[in-house]
């Protein structure tokens, strides 16, 4: 059975679309009654996805040896002709690069739903979350450039509606900015992909070449051709490789986002509902990093070497500048959003280091940030939900009044600032090792960022968790009301995320070993390691 197409992509896609159209058919007055069954069905699908991917990890499904897949070979691979004349195929598969991201998505879907269990208009909200997950998984499993691009743009639609319908006061502006900004960058990327498509030699287009164009969108075949050409020459020539590299990277850098293309992110996050933020930070940003590894790094290693330093500068600025800007924020969620920019810089630095350990650090950072940042946004969401404010300092002394929010915040903040034995530290330390080897004294920048990261997190905790005492005044509009704490579903979500953070912090090798196997194989092929 084609597990990936049918279960991982098809099932959530079909179920969510069916449910959404069902809501459309029902008269408006009856819709609220659908919230509970809709939530239940989508939640069950999410749990199924989680169980299936976890089964894949343990080898219960498919008996895969995740450490022995190699480079540009895939498991659960399936290919069907889609548009014959253009050489478009429905081509899916998993390897150690994409699988952690797929598992992460499947893990975050039910957790996100739990964290926002009682979101308003749940009959539309929960199916949209599921649709979001389906399109995200679609991006990670695509092995055809056309299909990749389709899913890449499809992810925008559910997120656009999540921001637009459930967002804050300026949601309209934020949703449009998010859509237009990333879409514009994607168009440049699309131009790059199409150019790449037409530059193929028809003789090398493989079995699925289009009957009309004689070329194919098949990424596996293309990678094969590029790898062969890159071993004793430069695939497509030095100039063309550089041009295409820049075009593709632009799309991915905006999505990541790297400074100075990051300004859509704080707006989108601040306006997005909690669930949207959790998936946006947890998975959607990683699409950019994943895309870099999957296409430009694989196809254009020579251009990568050429632009190594520029890429490092992008990462460096994102990391250091992002951290400094964090320190100047007064809005809690905006601070966390900028911290994402800062952490995404680590991924760029890992790629720029051109060391296997740097790649592994980047991959593990994608994964670790994917677990930690949803917790950060869940905390922000709970803060907003219960105190009706996002301003740092609106509520002090939470340790006394809302111990669960305070504990979750302390935990999430500490994980994000890279406390050892929590998931983020491993990636940071590995990165520093690789970074010093490649760039030497530039390491002082990331070092500075480490200190500033601690500063903004600690300073914000000083003004939220601590202080206050007996004289604590709840924020305006809440005088005289009982001071709230997390509700049960939020507690459960926090506990799950915290447990995962600890698990992958103490035993990082669970996920890291396969990432490392991938980078080893990649380096042998791309950079000629013996």
């Amino acid at each position: 059975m084609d597990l990936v197409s049918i279960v991982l992509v098809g099932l959530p896609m079909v179920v969510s679309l069916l449910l959404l159209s069902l809501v459309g058919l029902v008269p408006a007055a009856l819709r609220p009654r659908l919230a509970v069954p809709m939530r239940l069905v989508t939640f069950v699908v999410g749990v199924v996805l989680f169980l299936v991917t976890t089964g894949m990890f343990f080898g219960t499904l498919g008996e895969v040896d995740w450490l022995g897949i190699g480079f540009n070979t895939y498991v659960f691979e399936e290919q069907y002709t889609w548009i014959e004349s253009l050489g478009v195929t429905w081509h899916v598969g998993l390897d150690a690069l994409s699988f952690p991201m797929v598992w992460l998505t499947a893990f975050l879907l039910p957790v996100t739903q739990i964290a926002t269990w009682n979101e308003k208009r749940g009959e539309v909200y929960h199916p949209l979350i599921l649709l979001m997950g389906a399109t995200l998984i679609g991006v990670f499993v695509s092995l055809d450039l056309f299909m990749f691009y389709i899913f890449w743009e499809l992810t925008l639609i559910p997120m656009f509606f999540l921001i637009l319908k459930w967002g804050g006061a300026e949601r309209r502006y934020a949703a449009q900015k998010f859509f237009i900004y990333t879409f514009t960058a994607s168009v440049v990327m699309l131009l790059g992909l199409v150019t790449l498509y037409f530059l193929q030699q028809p003789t090398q287009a493989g079995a699925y070449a289009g009957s009309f164009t004689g070329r194919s969108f098949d990424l596996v075949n293309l990678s094969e051709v590029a790898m062969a050409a890159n071993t004793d020459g430069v695939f497509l020539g030095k100039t063309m490789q550089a041009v295409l590299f820049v075009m593709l990277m632009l799309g991915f850098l905006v999505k990541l986002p790297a400074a100075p293309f990051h300004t859509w992110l704080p707006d989108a996050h601040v306006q997005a509902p909690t669930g949207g933020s959790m998936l946006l930070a947890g998975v959607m940003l990683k699409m950019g990093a994943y895309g870099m590894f999957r296409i430009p790094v694989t196809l254009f290693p020579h251009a990568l070497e050429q632009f190594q330093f520029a890429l490092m500068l992008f990462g460096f600025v994102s990391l250091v500048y992002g951290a400094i800007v964090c320190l100047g924020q007064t809005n809690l969620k905006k601070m966390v959003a900028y911290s994402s920019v800062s952490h995404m810089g680590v991924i760029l630095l890992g790629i720029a280091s051109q060391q296997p350990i740097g790649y592994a650090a980047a991959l593990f950072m994608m994964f670790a940030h994917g677990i930690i940042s949803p917790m950060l946004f869940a905390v922000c969401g709970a803060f907003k939900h219960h105190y009706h404010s996002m301003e740092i300092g609106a509520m002090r002394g939470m340790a006394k009044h809302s111990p669960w929010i305070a504990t979750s915040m302390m935990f999430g903040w500490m994980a994000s600032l890279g406390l050892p034995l929590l998931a983020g530290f491993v990636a940071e330390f590995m990165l520093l090792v690789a970074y010093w080897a490649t760039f030497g004294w530039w390491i002082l920048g990331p070092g500075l960022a480490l200190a500033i990261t601690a500063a903004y997190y600690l300073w914000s905790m000083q003004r939220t968790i601590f202080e206050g005492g007996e004289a604590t005044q709840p924020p305006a509009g809440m005088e005289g009301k009982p001071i709230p704490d997390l509700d049960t579903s939020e507690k459960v979500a926090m506990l799950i995320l915290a447990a995962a953070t600890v698990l992958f912090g103490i035993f990082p090798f669970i996920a890291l070993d396969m990432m490392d196997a991938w980078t080893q194989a990649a380096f042998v092929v791309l950079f000629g390691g013996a």
Partner: protein
Amino acid sequence: MSAETVSGTGLEVPSFALLIILLPMLAFPVILLLGRLFNGKDWWRGALKEGGLIALPVMAASLIASLAVIRRFIGETSASATSTVMHWVNFAWQDAATGEIQLFSMDFGFYVDHTTVMLLFVASFLCLLINIFSIGYMNTDPVNDNRNHRFYAEFVLFCSGMLGMVLSDSFLWLFIFWELMGLCSYLLIGFYYERPSAAYAAKKAFLTTRVGDVFLVIGLAMLWNLFQPHAVGGDALAYSVVFDGANLQAIADAGKSGALQLALGFMFIGAVGKSAQFPLHVWLPDAMEGPTPVSALIHAATMVNAGLYLVARMFPIFGAEAMHGAFTDLAFLIALVGGITACMAALIAFVQMDLKKVLAYSTMSQLAYIFTGLGAALWLANSLDWHHDDAAHTIVVVAFGAALFHLFNHAMAKGMLFMASGSVIHEMHHAHHDVHHHHDHDEHHDGHHEEDHFDAQSMANMGGLASKLPITATAMLVGSASIIGLPLIGGFWSKEGIIANTWRVALEDPRFFLPAILVLVTAGMTGFYMSRMWFMTFAGKPKTEVAAHVHEQTPWIPIPLLVLIPMSLSAIVFASLEATHYLGDTGSHLGEMGLLDGFLYEMEHAFANHDPFFLVLTYIAIGLSLVVGPMAAMALYGGQLADGEEAKPWLKPFVSLSARVNKRHRFDNTALAEGSLATALQERLYFDAWYDAACEKIVAGFSNLAAVFDRRVVDGAIKGIESGSQSTSRQVRSLTTGSARDYIMMAALGTLLIALVLWGVA
């Protein structure tokens, strides 16, 4: 004996060593969760002391397991024992020269040697005693009701961090547990989170140490890259690789010993932060915002020792033959930082009125002694030919051992001093409560409250407590004597060695005269501020009504004091077992020479050097610390107890002596006390003010600017493009007039244009 013998002894650390770390670590969530569930229940408060009686057996089990590990190790008399628990991180590396992909790992395992043995004992032993003390201190104060579970949970996590750091077998895991302790100290310093001062102090402690940690982690990255070629298939940060003589030789041959010194120097900055040395010392005094057991735990017995431990761990690298003479600059830097801090902290301690703050600065000063001693020992190990010359070998190992033994003595004494100060504060607090209660009763009508103004920690409110708190006063006396260096007890055995060795290096390397003079002068200053503290607290007449009503209550507090008093007094036994030799020389056994010869051997090094220069020096140091300092303190602060108060016979001579000196030699120091130096010392030499101002003005100002820049310029550019395209489209749209005449005209113009273009092309 030397670095070469460190690796490959083949001795295994028993697997139950994991329990030492694991038990307290697992107790953390248990206590936290139970506390959250059962807070307010009577059995939880009474029978389990809000988690204190869960922590107690856990820490006891940890101590027993530690003792078993230590006993087995000492019985085997081996240089070191190791065992790997798990391959933590596996990864690949592309060799820059060959392009080859090599495999590496970062592993977690145990490493036990003589230094480990000592620190493992210090940590597990003091953690248990402090746990007992906490039950007396924390659970009798209503302020702590329903939050003690948080204290005990964080406490056990803290202990597991310290024990893990001591036991782990690589610099990476040292750092991991080091950070875990950083987290716990943050949580415990901020235990009274509702006080802004505690929140501020917690943040300050974490951030200041974090600045050091950044350098430490960069140093580790450098170190990994240096040892990478020699650790293929293994862990380049493991002690067994880093200490290996052949690896160090290869690094020296490659001309990279300068890079190695740089890496170690960066790591040393981490130690400076963690051990509160100049210029990252500002967090320690503020950390007294935590409850007193936390001060005892973190700021005397365990966490601050982490930095010393890190530097001590570098000894095999400094001592390697391959690195001969390469690291003298770094050794000097370590000694210099120590010398400056020792003197500075002692000066500031002169004017502190808060009992715990005096102890905080005393901690800082004594840690600085150890740094100076380590610096001198590292210099000697790096410069002398101690692998082949027996005399040089003795000098090096005794210098190193003296520094480590001072760590031991200081930890025992300071743990006791902090607990004794906690006892004083606790009883002052309760006495104040009682007195205040009576007052309330008497002056019922005017509703006068002085609760908020009374400072139970200020020595200005104490005095004459020697008769009221006999056990506490004795503990305080023994602890102070140990810190001062009274012959034959505690710190005496190690401190004189540190001073002598710093001078020994100064004779070879004149740069060392600066730290050498500083530590010698500080010996006298130590005598002054420790005596001042004791006399202000325990001698003279009670300065307030509260102090007159103090008495010892709960049994949990004196127990650890009664255990630690003989511990400090019996340093002579450890010394006779040649502690300084054993700690410094990985090739030796404990008690090799027999007790009497061992005693004489240590005496020679501490007290009766054959070399007349060192003999004179030692007596100058003893004279300064035992006569000049305490006499000045007696003259200023001594005095007889109140009438009818009778101190215990062994305390009486001290009180009487102080009264006599005070009567005879009293001098007026008001001019000095009101001078600008005293003011500067009150303000802690303005370091805190400068740092705060720098953070506020530079860091916060710059980040606010960056936030504005991001909104206006970076996002502004995007908004500019957006509004630009909107206005363009508005203009384009204005062409769409809806009038048929305009359209026909435009179509005609367009056709004409196309025709022109076609004509041009053709």
